[in-house]
């Protein structure tokens, strides 16, 4: 009996062993993995390498277009205000056979500002190292208008010497938030800041917004420069006698501003201002272009008693966060003549449907 029971036990053990083996076998089949999406991206939309590639690609296109004196080539990598300015620069440089009229955009970067924008357009910014000629740092904006387009040079400014740049988020780990043109978390919306700045440029200290801006003490910003030009001309000899008039108009482009958040909650806005100068003297007088650029742009037209010059000025402003009570600071500008003519056109670049232009005439 005992023997039989032990035998039975053994048999049971054996059966259990077989069952265990079978179970092991069954469990051995590896399960198919299913895709598990990682956490969505939250950081910068470009890596530093990609940004550098963009910068270098743009620089290559700039160089080629300049070498070929063919602004068409710029289309691939340049757009917006930068395109207009660059086209003008290339034409002038070709006319004068002097490439010093073309702004250098170095590829050596001092800083990058990468957006976190998941939609389009996206704008990334770089701050370049000074060129060999010790020109100022430049802040450059590259905009990708749609997913199927590449980043294109959109705006650039020369930073005002001595300006303190605000801090931006780490471009590699965090990225910077884009700020809408009508963002109200700032002392003044980016779009409005540009409008006010345009007024300030045109009217100088007489502007209603003069107090809202803190202009650099020691350096020249766009306001100072334009106003200085105006003063110089008005004060020039014989201008009064010739019954000369110097009318300066500036207006912000309302569709171009790009803005990015700074670390302190403020923003840097970059945009373009359209400006024009109408100068006329008495009927039998004549006005010569004031600069080589203007001369080149006149394209050999005779001098008349009228001179019309258009500017496309790219500017960068720092707007402090709302409630800080701080003034807006100009960070940089690029003052470029894009048109010169010997008569006033019927339509000017500062024309707006709702004219926000501020005019100073005398």
């Amino acid at each position, binding site marked *: 009996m005992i023997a039989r029971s032990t*035998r039975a036990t*053994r*048999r049971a053990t*054996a059966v259990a*062993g077989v069952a*265990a*083996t079978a179970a*092991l*076998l069954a*469990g*051995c089949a*590896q399960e*198919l*993995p*299913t*895709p*598990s*999406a*990682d*956490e*969505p*991206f939250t950081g910068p*939309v*470009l*890596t530093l390498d*990609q940004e550098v*590639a*963009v910068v270098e*690609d743009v620089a290559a296109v700039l160089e080629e277009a300049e070498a070929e004196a063919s602004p068409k080539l710029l289309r691939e990598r340049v757009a917006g205000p930068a395109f207009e300015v660059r086209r003008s620069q290339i034409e002038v440089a070709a006319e004068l056979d002097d490439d010093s009229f073309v702004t250098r955009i170095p590829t050596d970067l001092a800083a990058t500002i990468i957006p976190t924008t*998941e*939609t*389009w357009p996206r704008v990334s910014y770089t701050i370049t190292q000074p060129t060999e000629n010790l020109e100022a740092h430049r802040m450059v904006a590259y905009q*990708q208008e*749609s*997913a*199927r387009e*590449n*980043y294109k040079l959109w705006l650039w400014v020369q930073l005002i010497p001595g300006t303190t740049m605000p801090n931006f988020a780490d471009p590699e780990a965090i990225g910077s938030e884009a700020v809408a043109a009508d963002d109200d978390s700032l002392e003044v919306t980016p779009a409005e800041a540009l409008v006010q700045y345009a007024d300030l440029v045109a009217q100088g200290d007489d502007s209603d917004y003069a107090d809202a801006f803190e202009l650099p003490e020691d350096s020249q910003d766009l306001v100072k420069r334009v106003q200085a030009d105006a003063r110089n001309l008005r004060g020039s000899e014989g201008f009064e006698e010739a019954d000369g008039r110097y009318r300066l108009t500036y207006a912000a482009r309302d569709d171009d501003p790009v803005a990015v958040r700074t670390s302190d909650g403020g923003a840097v806005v970059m945009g373009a201002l359209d400006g024009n100068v109408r100068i006329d003297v008495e009927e039998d007088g004549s006005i010569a272009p004031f600069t080589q650029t203007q001369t080149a742009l006149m394209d050999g037209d005779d001098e008349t008693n009228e001179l019309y010059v258009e500017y496309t000025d790219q500017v960068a402003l720092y707007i402090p966060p709302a409630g800080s009570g701080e003034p807006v600071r100009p960070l940089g500008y690029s003052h470029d003549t894009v048109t010169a003519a010997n008569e006033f056109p019927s339509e000017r670049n500062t024309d707006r449907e709702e004219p926000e232009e501020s005019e100073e005439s005398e």
Partner: protein
Amino acid sequence: MLQRILGAVLVVAGLAAIAFGVATATVLRESDTVVATARPVGDGTVVVTDPGVLDLVDADVTVTASVPAGQEVTVVVGRDVDVLGWLEGDPYARVTGLADWETLTTSAVTPEEAEDPEAEPAEGDAEEPQDVELPDPAGSDMWITELTAAEQVSLRWNDRPGPWVLLAAGTGAAPADEADEEAEEEGTEASDADAQTEASDADAVAPTLELTWEREVSTPLLWPAVGLGGLLLLLGIVLVVVGGRRKKRSRRGSAAPAAGAAAAAAGAPSALSGDSPIAPDSPLSPDSPASPASPLGSAGGASPWAAPGAEQARPTPVEEPGGAWEPATATRPDPVAPEDEGSGTAPVPVAGRFSRRSRLRPTRSAPEVPLHDEGGSPDVVEEHQDDAPATTTGSMPALADGRPLTRRELRRREEERRAGAQSGMSRAFRALTGQTPVVPPADAAPPEVADPPAAPGRRAAAWRETWGFDATSTAQDASQDETTEGGTR
């Protein structure tokens, strides 16, 4: 019996389990690489993997995209948002996962859904415009990596954090306007097979994706199976051994009475010869017992045994050369025979011939008999007696016989026993066949009878064997020695 059978079964099962375990880690082991293919579906020329597909099996993936000959294919990797944004609602095929280890699941995404990548992909919509030409994705600033080549392109991707997706696009080699014509044709005859065939020549087509991962193949069964097998093996061996022991024990129990009976039957000679050594022999080496001999012994019983045993032994080696040791032992008796007073009884040799086992076994024991008998010198016997207690175990019947085995004999028996034990298989089989039980009783008897006469020659024979003299020569020598010995004496 059953125990031993079970033991054997367990041993086999254990070996099988071990073999299986090893096999899972070798021949049955799954491939180290997973190669999964995605066939494009839908109207688009683009195939896009879902986030998480690239690192489905392993972080390192090699993606191979191929298109028909003469066309170009581009593969890029980008952030999911960027890729979907780039697609801008154009139809594409979406790779959603693995259907099995060799196939990727794909689903067509139509423009409406593309806006919401989370939506359930619908079947390709026939109303969708055919052959939507997408621009070449190559050259976008957004891609982390991109490759373009004719017909086939292979891209290695090492996954990094984030929902990276891969986009493969057939960019076509035909001019765009040609493709447009094709598109128009298909607009009118969407189902025209010919048009589509032509189109495939000219238009970009969605590439076929092949994702290859290195996979770490675990061998989860290796050690469990080997362990289990080892366990079974061990258990089986234990069962077999234990079963064998039990059998021996039981056999010994039966052998003892048989010996007693034999002794009784043999009468005086048996008592004199005290063949007891045989009794112990049987338990030690169950194989050795000569079944036929025993009945003979009990029957014929007398000292004459020796002679017949010897005679019988002689033919054995001649007829059947067996193991090396067999002839030796078999021949040994030969020389003895003549000297033996042994008026051989007829029945013995006959019995020996009938059964091989009987032939062999008795021979082994037989030699001892004649030798003993022949030697007859009291010295030897005494010596034996003296030695016996020391070398033999208490249980050994040797004592009962009164003539203990010499040390040499014991040693030899032990060797034989070992030799027998080594051929485990035969033992096991015997155990299975169940023939053994018959043997033991027989075993004991003949030697009993035979032993006493063998005494003197036995030492010489044992000596020869110990020192490895040739079997046949040993036999001859033994006979000579014995004769001389006898003569001198």
